[in-house]
């Protein structure tokens, strides 16, 4: 009996020690994880939130707000750095803790939201705004927009961008109407005695000439679904001005003649060799390098690329109106652009310990982003009227775009502005299939029809 009691006691001790051991280990692991992850985005948020709470609770002075935004290239770094500098003067007690946004279609942000770790301020796309609205994880900014004078500074053309479907403001947009531009290397066209293509027949001729010289006609970064969707959209808008926007809103069907014709035309262009063979595994850096180094003659990207393209190629780069099926369609289509604005921008976490302050800061940063984009990125296509002038002359391509804009009658959407996430996912992957040259136009139409059903 004694032995049995003793053995039970020993077992209990062993088990208890193991549990305590586990408990300690778990605590240590968490501590280690937290300390290690100070470098990572998620833990940064937690640490910052805690810090912010502590600081406001105790001293009421220094407040650190976490901000989740893009910080990858000059177009995103310059505005952020400028905003931080300006913030120091306007809000000396506020410090920003940057969490660099991942190019992951909002997956990181959704995960942070699911685990209750949303940053104080975050850059939200239309899709995210709609998702977080349902879960009350995005602050209504109507009052802040009014009290700070944000609404008064908004350009009339961008008024719609501030409001969500339910009529509320959930994010302060800094980008205005944006456009998909079809860039081309003027020097390469001149060297090969080619005119800027106006029709698809002209384009097919250019493809043939460039391919015979070992030049990639158009470098696409098809690893990113938005670029392949944009490639489809620039063709689709030649047949129907609504492009992918009409499909997203459900006012058109993929089986409509215009979209079928657009798919077939793109299939024909791909078969002729418009894009590089490995377009679907090419990323932005690789495609851009091809274009800027003269290995590729054309490139499809947003108007934000004007600055970088001009810096690298100088006068040898320009953008063209999208080629169309014939001269008449080309002329008519000059007024219909792919791209457009979206209800996206800086949003605020309503559960933040300093939500009201964060909302004010978000508005301030938005304004400063617009200023920096105008002054240092020579991009007047911002959401707000900042009253600022660029530090040097606008690049020729931007001037050309500015001159064209008054005549633009319609735009579509970038994929981040689409509201139907099923359609968004479908058009990105199906257009990737189409530009790969391994999926036929018929497959594209049939699959998209299935997806939309």
């Amino acid at each position, binding site marked *: 009996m004694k032995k049995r009691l003793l053995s039970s006691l020993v077992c209990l001790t*062993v*088990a208890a020690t193991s549990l305590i051991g586990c408990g300690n280990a778990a605590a240590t692991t968490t501590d280690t994880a937290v300390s290690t992850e100070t470098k990572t985005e998620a833990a940064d948020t937690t640490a910052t939130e805690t810090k912010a709470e502590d600081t406001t609770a105790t001293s009421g002075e220094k407040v650190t707000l976490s901000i989740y935004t893009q910080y990858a290239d000059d177009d995103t770094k310059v505005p952020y750095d400028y905003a931080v500098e300006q913030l120091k003067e306007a809000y000396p007690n506020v410090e920003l803790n940057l969490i660099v946004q991942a190019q992951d279609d909002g997956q990181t942000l959704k995960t942070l939201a699911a685990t209750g770790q949303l940053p104080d301020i975050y850059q939200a796309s239309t899709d995210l705004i709609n998702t977080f609205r349902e879960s009350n994880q995005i602050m209504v900014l109507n009052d802040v927009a009014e009290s700070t004078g944000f609404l008064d500074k908004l350009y009339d053309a961008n008024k719609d961008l501030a409001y969500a479907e339910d009529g509320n403001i959930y994010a302060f947009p800094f980008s205005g109407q944006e456009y998909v531009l079809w860039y081309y290397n003027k020097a390469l066209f001149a060297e090969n005695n080619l005119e800027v293509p106006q029709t698809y027949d002209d384009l097919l001729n250019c493809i043939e000439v460039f391919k015979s010289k070992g030049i990639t006609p158009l470098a696409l970064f098809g690893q990113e679904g938005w670029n392949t969707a944009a490639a489809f959209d620039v063709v689709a808008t030649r047949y129907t001005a609504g492009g992918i926007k009409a499909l997203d809103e459900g006012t058109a069907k993929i089986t409509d003649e215009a979209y079928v014709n657009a798919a077939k035309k793109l299939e024909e262009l791909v078969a002729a060799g418009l894009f590089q063979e490995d377009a679907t*595994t090419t990323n932005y850096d690789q495609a851009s390098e091809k274009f800027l180094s003269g290995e590729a003659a054309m490139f499809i990207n947003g108007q934000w690329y004007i600055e970088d393209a001009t810096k690298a190629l100088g006068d040898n780069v320009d953008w063209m109106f999208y080629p169309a099926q014939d001269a008449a369609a080309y002329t008519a289509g000059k007024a219909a652009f792919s791209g457009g604005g979206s209800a996206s921008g800086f949003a605020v976490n309503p559960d933040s310990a300093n939500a009201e302050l964060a909302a004010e800061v978000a508005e301030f940063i938005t304004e400063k982003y617009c200023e920096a984009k105008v002054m240092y990125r020579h991009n007047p296509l911002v959401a707000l009227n900042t009253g600022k002038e660029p530090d040097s002359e606008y690049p020729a391509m931007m001037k050309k775009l500015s001159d064209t804009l008054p005549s633009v009658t319609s735009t579509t959407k970038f994929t981040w502005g689409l509201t139907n996430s099923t359609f968004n996912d479908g058009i990105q992957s199906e257009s990737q299939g189409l530009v790969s040259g391994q999926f036929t136009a018929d497959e594209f139409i049939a699959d998209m029809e299935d997806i939309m059903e």
Partner: protein
Amino acid sequence: MKKYMGNKLAILLFILPALAIFITFDFIPIIQVFAYSFTDWNGLTMPNFTGLKNYLDLFTDRVFFTSNRNQLIFAIVITVYQMLFATVFAITISDKKMNGRKFLRVAYFIPVILSVTVVCQLWSAILSGEGLLNKLFEVAGSDFKQNWLGDRYKAIYVIAFVNAWQWMGYQFALIVAGIKSIPADYYEAARIDGCSNVKAHMKITIPLLAETYKFCLIISLTGGIKAFTEMNILTGGGPNKSTFTLTYMMYNAAFKKSDYGYGLAAASVMVIECMLVMLVINFIFRDKDQKKEEEKARRKRNA
């Protein structure tokens, strides 16, 4: 020892910590996966019960069949490649007369200790359109230039090869350890009986490694079913989801479309597939004694 094994309280106390961890971190989440797969949960709001809708949608989804086909191809390629080469290499370096054994043992294992991201970046550079492999063909005067990672049919084989190349060393290490545990006497006896090296390995090494092979088979096949990282880095699941797997479907539905319910339905099917594979492997590798006992029981029943 018998005394302790007879003490039910002791047994319970010893297994309790592991059991608690298993239940908390494995069992309950798996049950949750199955439960949420019957809802329209978006990851953030309260889920609504939708019955079998997610499963019906899944079974009629083109990508579901592509994913299953890819998993099968992936599993077969990595299993054949890893087990075949790991066995050949392990037997080769087990020969004590061989020079450079230590070097080869380390060399075969090096890819295992590399990060998957590093390995994928390495192979991505080799396999890209202007990559090393195509350049080699070009230098050799061949026009056999391929779109290795962008081909809707071939890409999955290439991805499977990359995975197999990296993890072969792991199975190699397991088989080497298995070979070391076989007493040298068996080989000596076989040699005295005039058995060749190849025959000795066929008759002694491979049959005695049955348990090791069983383990290797399980990790290869379930690894194939769960495959995700390589396709995510090398092809992003493209072109047009042609290199998707069920894990990728789950990831895409949950994180891109905020449709966790649908994603978890894909995950549930994946869990069932993994369990089925393990059951089949366990059935194939049953003990001979167990088989005999089953045979006896069957005879008794018939009598």
